[in-house]
């Protein structure tokens, strides 16, 4: 079997005397959605921030496509085609979709002026693929629904050829219908061979979207399970009690 897309080995991070992430090892394959679950403070966001370069790690190794990677800041992560979609939609509300998609990476004409027309054309192209119902290209994104806003954020990651996507509770701010739309997007990205780490609280959601799930508790990995082989109650047991079901692979944080 080929090397996984991403392999995090023995990742560590401490704040003061607290081990926020304590020797955690997980992996991700192309075209796979892997959940990262746990209570608030379980260390799941910290683990993902070390992958996205937003936080420096104390120890551990990141391997991408079978080679060890050097990721010390967000720009390094970007070079490995790792993009992050943040929990609180990181868009400038007063700008339109194209301006947000290209924010910080604008296309310019040879004279150095913004090439808004090309940026809009590219935005229409990518959004037609992700969300064919998206029509409002000239209104500020503040006027869009949560789902449409999230598709702009996702388009940003996809346009710049993300191979590895980190989604930090992408549906936390969305309604039922919009959540379904994001779920469809995730399915679509998955079919295109993009690997996705999905941080989520909602077990139902994880069961629906993910192939595998990692559960963390107090900074340690409780275990890794294939979501089809366990029940929601099994996963709840992992999160609350730290008890790994027989079908899962227990981690260092599992109780005996």
């Amino acid at each position: 079997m080929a090397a996984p897309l991403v392999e995090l080995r023995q990742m560590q991070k401490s704040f003061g005397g607290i081990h926020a992430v304590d020797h955690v090892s997980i992996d991700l394959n192309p075209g796979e959605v892997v959940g990262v679950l746990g209570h608030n403070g379980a260390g799941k966001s910290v683990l993902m921030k070390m992958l996205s370069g937003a936080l420096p790690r104390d120890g551990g190794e990141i391997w991408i496509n079978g080679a060890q990677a050097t990721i010390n800041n967000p720009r390094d992560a970007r070079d490995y085609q790792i993009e992050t979609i943040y929990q609180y939609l990181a868009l400038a509300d007063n700008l339109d979709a194209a301006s947000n998609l290209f924010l910080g990476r604008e296309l310019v004409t040879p004279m150095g002026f913004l090439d808004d027309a090309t940026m809009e054309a590219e935005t229409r192209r990518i959004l037609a693929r992700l969300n064919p119902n998206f029509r409002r290209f000239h209104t500020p994104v503040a006027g869009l629904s949560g789902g449409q806003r999230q598709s702009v954020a996702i388009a940003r990651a996809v346009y710049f050829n993300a191979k590895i996507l980190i989604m930090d509770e992408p549906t936390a701010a969305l309604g039922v219908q919009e959540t379904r739309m994001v779920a469809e997007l995730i399915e679509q990205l998955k079919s295109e061979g993009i690997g996705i780490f999905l941080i989520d609280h909602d077990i139902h959601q994880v069961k629906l979207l993910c192939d595998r799930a990692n559960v963390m508790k107090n900074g340690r990995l409780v275990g890794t399970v294939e979501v089809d082989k366990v029940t929601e109650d099994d996963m709840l047991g992992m999160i609350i009690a730290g008890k790994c079901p027989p079908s899962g692979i227990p981690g260092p944080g599992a109780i005996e």
Partner: protein
Amino acid sequence: MTDTSSAATAQPVKPRNFFAALEIDTRLLGMVGAFILICVIFSLLTDGRFMTPRNIFNLTIQTASVAIMATGMVFVIVTRHIDLSVGSLLATCSAVMAMIQTVVTPDWLGLGLNHPATAPIAIIAGIITGLAIGAFQGWLIGYLTIPAFIVTLGGYLVWRNVAWYLTTGQTIGPLDKNFQLFGGINGTLGQTWSWIFAAFAIVGALYVQFNARRTKVKHEFPVKPVWAEVVIGAIIAAAIIGFVAILNAYEIPTARLQRIYAARGEVMPDGLVAGYGIPISVLLLILVAIVMTIVAQRTRLGRYIFATGGNPEASQLAGINTRFLTVKVFAIMGALCALSAIVASSRQTFHSNDIGTLDELRVIAAAVIGGTALSGGLGTIYGAILGALIMQSLQSGMAMVGVDAPFQNIVVGTVLVVAVLIDIIYRRRTGD
């Protein structure tokens, strides 16, 4: 282009009505409407004196100084800051330029009075002064994270009195002859050059319009119907021609013409009539408006200014250096204060201690009446200029009608608050 994307661009949607087809910003229409209303009311009250070429000419030169600064205040307010120091900064720039013209170049450099190099030296020094002070205030705000309100409130006191110190409180004048060309009535283009300017402006505006349409067609975006483009082009051309015609219609008094000819050593032909044309200060304002609009809409700097105003955290995550951006915004504001200082001091032909007093409030009011939201992220350059024009029209109209001074300020203050209220209601209705 795939099938889905051309479906998304869709065929030209049938416009709901005449104005929708023209795609004119309704807020712009509202402001122009308010301005026309003010003009009509004052014309009726003054038996038409308000709308004479002479008064319109005066309105434009009275508006120039505040309008130039208001374009910079748009950037400041869009990035969620405020600048209370612009009037004082104007005074410092004016003092620096006045001292250079009356002391440094004639005496220290030994160039004498009215040397051709005097005005350029003074202007460059003034702009550097404004730029440096603005950048310094921006650094205090962006890097040391002192609130802009506090930094510029301090600046309000500091720069007003730096100006006083530089001039030892004296009125400095008369200013250099060439420098005074920026003062309005003392420097105009004349009829011929005004018409040439109009021709260039029309060609330029139509080219921009044509180019925008061509780009849209190239990318298969929906475009306006051709008749709508023609209507807009005609309105723009008519506005430019009308504006220049009015300024040209303000005739130079015969006695003054005779003096001009006498100064050149010529004899004035009998029955000669000449109009003032476009004042150089207004030309400067037009230039500033064009440059600032391009910066706002067509450059990364402008995009980042608006993005940061809309969501500072998102902008930082996108890799924008918001601290340095703050320095740039206040530096631009400072440079514009220097330009306004040129216009303001040359208009009164001398530097006085109280120059630019209360301008900070007029400038902020102009930007806000023009639709700039104090919550950040929203504002337009043309709006701020129209805001300045509306305030100046109200003020000078009331003065012509003979409204008592206290009532003038009461009305202007009320208009400011009502204008913002209308804007809030409008935004709530349209949802943008």
